[in-house]
Structure formats: structure tokens, C-alpha cells
């Protein structure tokens, strides 16, 4: 069972127009930079992207915006923090113009929707967002006197994840806070494509400390360490 692909281009060859794609990464950490750039070159359109935010620390995502490849985004912290940066930000401007539709969830809901999609749980209840605009159009239910919202699982067609090390069977290990959304997204996707900094032989990872078991990963491609995002140096 060898899941290794020779290039990012080959690994994403079947990504189609209209696909729903989840991208790992929390700002700069653990973002699938190489896969994202390959996607911008491939040029498929009408994509739904599921990602913390678009273009802050993960500047590669801006290529997709500029190319007009994104139809809809599902985010939890979509905009630059400062309004002045937002005014110069291609994603925020595309949202303002209505070129990109935007759906927003609290982080906990966002990530649990992904995990549930991977875990065969079609829906769950959470208190986050009750009594706010997040509750609009959602079922509200009271358990033990507290209001909760019904939130649905969020399955995706593809997940692009970034790992520190991976083996030929798709077992993945992340490094520090680069772990973040990558595991939940790997679980949620029909096809998970992992870019790994270092590819190791099967058996080269400690079986007791695998962050994402290979069963959740369909393809592996070695891409090396991403460059430090220029943005990261500033913080948000």
C-alpha cells in the first residue's frame, strides 16, 4: 500500500471544478503551502475552501483569490484583524464585492463539524453561538437549562494537509502547533492529500505516537519545509 506521489501536481490531478477543499493551517503554521500553490497553477474554478482564513500567514491562498478560483469560503477568522489591512486585502475585498460567499463558524464548531464528518456523526449540539447571529436558521435545543445549537457535519471532497513526517502508508506526525486543523480535515475528506516535510520508510515512525493514522490519508507527497511566511514575523 504505497500512497506516495512523485509531485504535488500529480497528487492533485483529479481535483475538479466545484470541489470542496479543506486546507490545514492556523495562520502560517501547518499550512499546505506547496499543494495550495499547485492548485493555483492547476486553475480549477468554483471551489469551496474550508480554512481558518484566507491569506494571512497562508499567503498562497491569495493566489486562488486573485485567480478567481474560489466561489465560497467556510472560515472562522476570515479577515485581517485591522480594518486598514482589510481594505488592501484581496479576500476581504472579494467578499465585500460578493465574488466570494462566506460562511463563518466559531472555531470549536468549525473543527468539530469536520471531525464529525470523519467520525460518522451527522450532527451535534454546541452552546457556542447560541443567542447570536450564528444561531440564525439553526435548531435551538435546551439541555439541562442551557441553550445549544444543532450543527451539522461538514464533509469535504479533498483535504490538503501539511505534516512534519509521513510514511508510505499515510501515517502522519505533526510538529508542535503546526498540528492544528490538519487531523480533523484529514478525517473529514473523501481524499486526503498530505504534503510532508520528510518522507520516511513505512515503519520509520513510532507506532505509539502517530497523530493521524494512515487510514485517513490517501496520498503523500514530500515537499520539504515551507518557507517562513513573511507575515508571521509580524503576528496578527
Amino acid at each position: 500500500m504505497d500512497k506516495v506521489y512523485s509531485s504535488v501536481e500529480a497528487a492533485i490531478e483529479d481535483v475538479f471544478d466545484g470541489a470542496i477543499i479543506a486546507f490545514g493551517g492556523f495562520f502560517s503554521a501547518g499550512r499546505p503551502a506547496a499543494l495550495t500553490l499547485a492548485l493555483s497553477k492547476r486553475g480549477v474554478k468554483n471551489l469551496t475552501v474550508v480554512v481558518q482564513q484566507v491569506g494571512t500567514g497562508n499567503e498562497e491562498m491569495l493566489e486562488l483569490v486573485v485567480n478567481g478560483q474560489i466561489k465560497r469560503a467556510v472560515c472562522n477568522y476570515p479577515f485581517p484583524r485591522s480594518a486598514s489591512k482589510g481594505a488592501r486585502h484581496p479576500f476581504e475585498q472579494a467578499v465585500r464585492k460578493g465574488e466570494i460567499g462566506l460562511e463563518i463558524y466559531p472555531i470549536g464548531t468549525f473543527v468539530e463539524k469536520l471531525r464529525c464528518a470523519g467520525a460518522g456523526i451527522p450532527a451535534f449540539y454546541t452552546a457556542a453561538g447560541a443567542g447570536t447571529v450564528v444561531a440564525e436558521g439553526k435548531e435551538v435545543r435546551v439541555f439541562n437549562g442551557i441553550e445549544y445549537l444543532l450543527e451539522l457535519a461538514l464533509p469535504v471532497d479533498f483535504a490538503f494537509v501539511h505534516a512534519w513526517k509521513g510514511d508510505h502508508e499515510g501515517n502522519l506526525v505533526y510538529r508542535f502547533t503546526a498540528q492544528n486543523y490538519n487531523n480533523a480535515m484529514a478525517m473529514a475528506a473523501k481524499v486526503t492529500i498530505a504534503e510532508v516535510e520528510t518522507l520516511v520508510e513505512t515503519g520509520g515512525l513510532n507506532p505509539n505516537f502517530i497523530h493521524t493514522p494512515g487510514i485517513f490519508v490517501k496520498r503523500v507527497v514530500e515537499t520539504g519545509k515551507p518557507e517562513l511566511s513573511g507575515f508571521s514575523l509580524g503576528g496578527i
Partner: protein
Amino acid sequence: MSKIMKITLPGMPPLEREMIALRIANMLEDGAYVNLGIGIPTLVSNWIEGRDIIIQSEIGMLKCGPLAEEGEIDQDRINASCQFVRDMPGTSYFNVETSFAMIRGGCMDVAVLGALQVSARGDLAGWNTPARGLGKRGNIGGSMDLAVGAKKVIVAMEHFTTNGEPKILTECSYPLTAKACVDVIVTNYALIEVTAKGLVLREAIPGVSAEEVQKMTAAPLIVAEDFHEMEL
């Protein structure tokens, strides 16, 4: 209620942001697990070094250390504000689903959050500035989970907006982060507790009277029996 406005007081100037953070740091108990939001809350970490307080960062890090120095930068070790940080003996890293299990599951003893507005009932509005013109869209991030999940929510904010508008109100006019979630508000003028009876003014900075805090606050304040000067 008549127009509320920022007033110039003869005593000490209002607290600097760092001093709001210090007042909050002094409220935290040893042994507490604490999450610090963006802005003034982040500054709380400057005042707890060496104390037995564990900071959680919602990106997936427990016992998050101080900001990294130049030579210690590691792109895989950032906090939820995308700042490079250090680890410490006892640090652990985990995924975001686990991080928010902790947050929603009641493991945070305290969340210190910034706010745009707080209501008399403790409603919190902190994620959406209508003036930015993005409608119902904004940066929710982890704020809604923290507001409903933490055992205690402390708001750290300035008493007025940069335009001099009051931020403590009878009702919030901005989109809410969560209803009735705030326990304590610490501003550059006062420390106010949210109780079932209403907002209780516990402390004001030196040179500022309870009456003056009330004048600056667009919600009725109950003056605590032991109302006193804020100590730092």
C-alpha cells in the same frame, strides 16, 4: 440615561493597557488554567511569569510560554495570535478539536477576553464592529466557545471606544459573542462585577469616585459595600 462621555479627571490618568492586564493577573489564582484573548488580554501573560498559572492557547498548546526571542523563532511554535512563543517544561501540543474540547468542556478556569461592548446582564459583544461594514461577517475565532465554556470570563477593555463612546451599556448594540457570560469587567477606570442584581462597582482607580465611574458608564452601577481604590 443622559449622554455618557469621557471626562477628564483631576487624579491619576486612566490605566495604561499593561496596568489593566496587571489588575487581572492579580485576580488569577495559583493553579488556574487560563486562556488569554487577543489585545489587552495577551498582556496578562507579562505579569504571571514564575507564577503557577498555565496558559492555554487555542491553536493547540497548553502551558504556552512567553514570546520567543529573536534566536528562538520556530515557525511551528506560534500562539493563537500568530506570535512566536516558547515552550516550557510540561508544555503539551494537541490538535484544535482537542483544544476546543477543553474550552467548551469547562477546563478553562478563566478566559480573559477583549470586548467592544458589555451589557448590564453580562452580554458580550466582541467580534464584529458594524462600522467596518461587513454586516454579519467578522472574526469570530475562538471567542464564542471561550465565552460559553470558561468557568469565569473576565473582560479586559478600555472604558470608552477611541471615539469616546461608552462600552458598558444597558444593552449591547453590536452583534453578540454570547449572552450573560461575563463575570468581571476590568477597564482603565474601574473593576465591575456582573451579578444577578446587576453591575456591581467594586473598585475604581485612585482619584476617581464611584459617582464619576457611574457618569462614564451607560448602565446603572450598584456600588459595592466595600467599594475601594484599585490596588496594583
